[in-house]
């Protein structure tokens, strides 16, 4: 069997794959955080909880209404997105004029509330979500066995990231968003309903998190704590990438997932902390983050 630095090729590729899958979720979540931050100037601490909610919505839809994975892929982000609309209208809107710290505290409270309620209902042990029938099975690529579902997650998340990037950077709607990120009042003075745009942007960013949650459901256990576990890592990813760019969020998401996967092969003890170490190094070398602009 082929080995690289004493590591079997199979194991290496396997961990790279897991790293990329994790990276896909980091990318989807940090993408949503970056879009929301750009327009609302709020770090959405509830992002992890809403990702968890997306996964739970899929599980509940399947077990109580018999809606399958593909239905959940559409419905769950929609449901969580509607919740986000309510959150923006009734909570976030009231604190835009305050110090940004309050946005963090408010969404942190929301995260605790959501997670607490679900922990109370479902406990902390995870619930299984079956892989949809169409995506079961494994492809033998010769050098690695690639589970179909994981391949799907990888392809789908890359597509979603690309589509989001395209929407924001290359379309008219995206130019409204970019302009409003720079100067919302002026954009509103041109006749664009910026308050509505803010609501929809928040809902879109949150829907991305919920979508990630649905895709994560068959891979990880559906659990109330899945959100808080990932959100802190995603914060580190965001600090590393810098909030400035959409592409930066995507690249650093996948990149750090990969680094984490590789660390699991070569130095497993550090795999849970490596992203934080990278963050510390990046902060020392380039405090604004790899793709960030000055504050």
């Amino acid at each position, binding site marked *: 069997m082929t080995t690289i630095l004493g590591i079997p090729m199979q194991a290496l590729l396997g961990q790279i794959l897991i790293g990329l899958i994790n990276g896909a979720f980091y990318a989807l979540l940090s993408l949503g955080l970056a879009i929301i931050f750009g327009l609302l100037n709020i*770090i959405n601490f509830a992002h992890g909880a809403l990702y968890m909610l997306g996964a739970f919505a899929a599980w509940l839809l399947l077990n109580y209404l018999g809606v399958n994975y593909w239905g959940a892929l559409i419905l769950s982000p929609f449901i969580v997105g509607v919740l986000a609309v309510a959150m923006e209208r009734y*909570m976030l809107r*009231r*604190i835009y*004029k*305050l*110090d*940004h*710290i*309050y*946005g*963090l*505290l*408010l969404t*942190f*409270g*929301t*995260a*605790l*509330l*959501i*997670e*607490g*309620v679900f*922990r*109370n209902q479902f406990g902390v042990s995870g619930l299984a979500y079956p892989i949809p029938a169409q995506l079961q099975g494994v492809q033998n690529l010769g050098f690695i066995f690639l589970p179909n579902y994981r391949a799907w997650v990888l392809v789908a998340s890359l597509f979603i990231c690309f589509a989001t990037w395209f929407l924001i950077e290359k379309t008219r709607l995206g130019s409204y968003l970019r302009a409003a990120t720079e100067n919302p009042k002026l954009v509103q003075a041109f006749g664009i309903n910026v308050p509505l745009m803010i609501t929809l942007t928040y809902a879109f960013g949150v829907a991305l998190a919920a979508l990630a949650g649905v895709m994560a459901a068959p891979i990880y256990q559906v659990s109330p704590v899945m959100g*808080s576990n990932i959100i*802190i*890592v995603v*914060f*580190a990813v*965001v*600090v590393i990438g810098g909030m400035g760019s959409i592409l930066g969020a995507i690249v650093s998401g996948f990149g750090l997932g990969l680094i984490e996967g590789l660390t699991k092969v070569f130095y497993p*003890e550090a795999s*849970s*902390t490596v*992203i*934080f*170490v990278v*963050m*510390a190094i990046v*902060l*020392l070398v380039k*405090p604004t983050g790899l793709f960030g602009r000055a*504050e």
Partner: protein
Amino acid sequence: MNTTKTRPLSRHNGRLSRRIAIFILAAAVLAIAPYVVYPVFLMKALCFALFACAFNLLIGYGGLLSFGHAAFFGSAAYLCGYAARDLGLTPELSVLVGTVGAGLLGYVIGAIAIRRHGIYFAMVTLALAQMVYFFAVQAPLTGGENGMQGIPRGFLFGIIDLNNTMAMYAFVVAVFLIGLAVLHRAVESPFGQTLKAIRDNENRAISLGYDSNRYKHLAFVLSAAIAGLAGATKALVFQLASLTDVHWTMSGEVVLMTLIGGLGTTLGPVVGAIIIVAMQTYLAESGSWVTAIQGATFIVCVLMFREGIVGAVWKLRANERLPEPRE
């Protein structure tokens, strides 16, 4: 931050006498309290009150929201436990070990975190604290999921048996007062004044020749050390240091305590800590509702009660205050 400004206690001449009165009143309350309330509850509340005061130094006087203070609280608890149980040091030395350790950790984390401002600072401290948490999960010393159990309270200065609840209580009160005195001294000193100037307008402070990063770093170290003092003492009280102490939820709790009491007020963190500890004690049997209720409290505080309890009291008393700017 416009809502976190500290208001001087009072500008008129009765300042000193009023302080003495407050001190006597506080001393009396602390002396009588253990005969009225369950002493362990009091000790816990005092530890958390000190922890919250340490956190408040950063947010209230430095404008820095740390979302990673559990790292200092928890690592000091482990270090103190290690010193007391495995090295057999006396309690005061064990607490000192925890405090100094937390201060050193604060030196390292602070050096990295102060490179960013505002919400980034919050995210960076959260992430670095999570690193400490993962370290605690893996390190053999900490006992992992089971925590570090059976930490002996020992004999203070080798003489006073802290297994006596009242002796332990007196020790905790002493630690609390010392910690508070240090923080108070720091805030009132030229150092504290400079820190406030940096909080209000960092660029201006820099242009006046202050090395703002050095001040913020020093404040961070001090805050971390006092948080460590609180954590180490807590480890002796409960004879336990566990992953809960280093977890991000603990960082969130101390933020909540300070927020409820009033960000940047002197007494706010103490009041907030007592409320949260009481809430935890009475809600203990309802399990995870504690988290949900804390979350809801956060939301209510941010949306409707940003000045906190003590802040609101000040506002009522200072009737010349203008209403908050309309939104």
